[in-house]
């Protein structure tokens, strides 16, 4: 089998230890070890993610901090009105998303929950699912879980959605007839032309992509990967991508949350 590129250790800001390699969860039969995408990147890129002063995603996080306490909507509230200090209220939240919301009876991604707070609790307009306000807020919230193990539930009320995501992961889409597994399970650590294939983990999302000069949302990445199989893709925020996100997140159970990451 393949081995990740190197045995570099990821420690952010000199003190947050990030687990980038862990035993695969037993429900993933195709992998023995899981690796963070960070392990497949060049050393110079890896370094950008080791220090928040060099991480270009932090500009968006700084904006999101201002946004956090900016009043918006008919109720005259900001996120801080209810959640107060983001560092305390959002500690560990990202590590367990997507998760079941009992009241709504649905699986919610972080973006869905944020928009629910905006429309229901603030009387504000929903943000574009993968727009910059949303990815900034996701990055800010995710950062509060950095170094904590991803621990997404896969059974109970989410079991059917998880199963749907698993089926999608192994579906060979498009004219190239490639599944997520074709590239990220069977061929991780190999090269497709210049691209060093990772396991397609999402513990680093939202990720700052140098190519886009901005934060990229999980569903955005999924959309690009499916498009690249010459398939009709799905939309960010669609029920299909929510299911796929739940499943892909669960493939990273045991890695640390490391968002916002830096990618080529």
């Amino acid at each position: 089998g393949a081995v990740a590129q190197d045995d570099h250790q990821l420690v952010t800001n000199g003190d947050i230890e990030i687990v980038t390699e862990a035993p695969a969860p037993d429900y993933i039969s195709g992998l023995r070890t899981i690796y963070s995408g960070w392990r497949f990147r060049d050393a110079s890129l890896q370094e950008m993610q080791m220090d928040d002063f060099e991480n270009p995603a932090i500009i968006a996080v700084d904006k999101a901090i201002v946004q956090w306490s900016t009043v918006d909507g008919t109720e005259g509230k900001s996120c801080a009105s209810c959640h107060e200090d983001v560092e305390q209220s959002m500690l560990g939240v990202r590590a367990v998303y997507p998760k079941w919301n009992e009241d709504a009876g649905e699986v919610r991604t972080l973006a869905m929950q944020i928009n629910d707070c905006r429309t229901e609790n603030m009387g504000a307009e929903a943000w574009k699912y993968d727009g910059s306000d949303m990815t900034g807020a996701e990055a800010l919230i995710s950062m509060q879980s950095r170094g904590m193990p991803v621990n997404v539930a896969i059974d109970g009320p989410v079991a059917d959605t998880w199963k749907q995501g698993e089926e999608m992961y192994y579906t060979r889409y498009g004219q190239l007839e490639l599944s997520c597994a074709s590239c990220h399970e069977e061929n991780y650590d190999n090269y497709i032309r210049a691209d060093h294939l990772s396991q397609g983990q999402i513990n680093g999302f939202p990720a700052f992509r140098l190519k886009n000069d901005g934060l990229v949302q999980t569903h955005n990445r999924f959309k690009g990967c499916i498009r690249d199989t010459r398939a009709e893709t799905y939309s960010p925020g669609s029920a299909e991508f929510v299911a796929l996100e739940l499943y892909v997140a669960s493939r990273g159970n045991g890695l640390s949350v490391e968002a916002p990451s830096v990618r080529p």
Partner: protein
Amino acid sequence: MNRTLTAIAGVCLATTAAAQEVAPLDVSFDEYGAIAASLSGVPGDAAAGKEVMSERSIGNCVACHQVTALEATFQGNVGPSLDGAADRWDESQLRGIVANAKMTFPETVMPAFYKVNGYIRPGDAYTGKAGTEPLPPLLSAQQIEDVVAYLTTLKE
């Protein structure tokens, strides 16, 4: 309609060696996945095949394969090196592999280059939008013949 006309023309002009193209849906593979007859009826051009294999916008075979004789940069390694491919496979087998590798290697990740339907969520090229089957094949009959002509030069 078009095909009928071409077929009639083919019969009439047989003496002047007019091309008799085999449409993607009419290709016949043997039980091991090989295709005996030329898809275009025109001999392949190895130099053109070399270009198809290297160019990102055409065959882009080097996305997955390494070929020492090609100058293309960043050759991938998802598939095996094609050096010496002609020592391992004859022309009809190579034609079968390029046209639809799944007839030779059932579960392979190698895409079928001469197939137009039977896809899951077929797209309109790389737009992410829906495409309508039959899709144009990834390579034309002549491009396949050109690639096969080049592959048959890969001897060690």
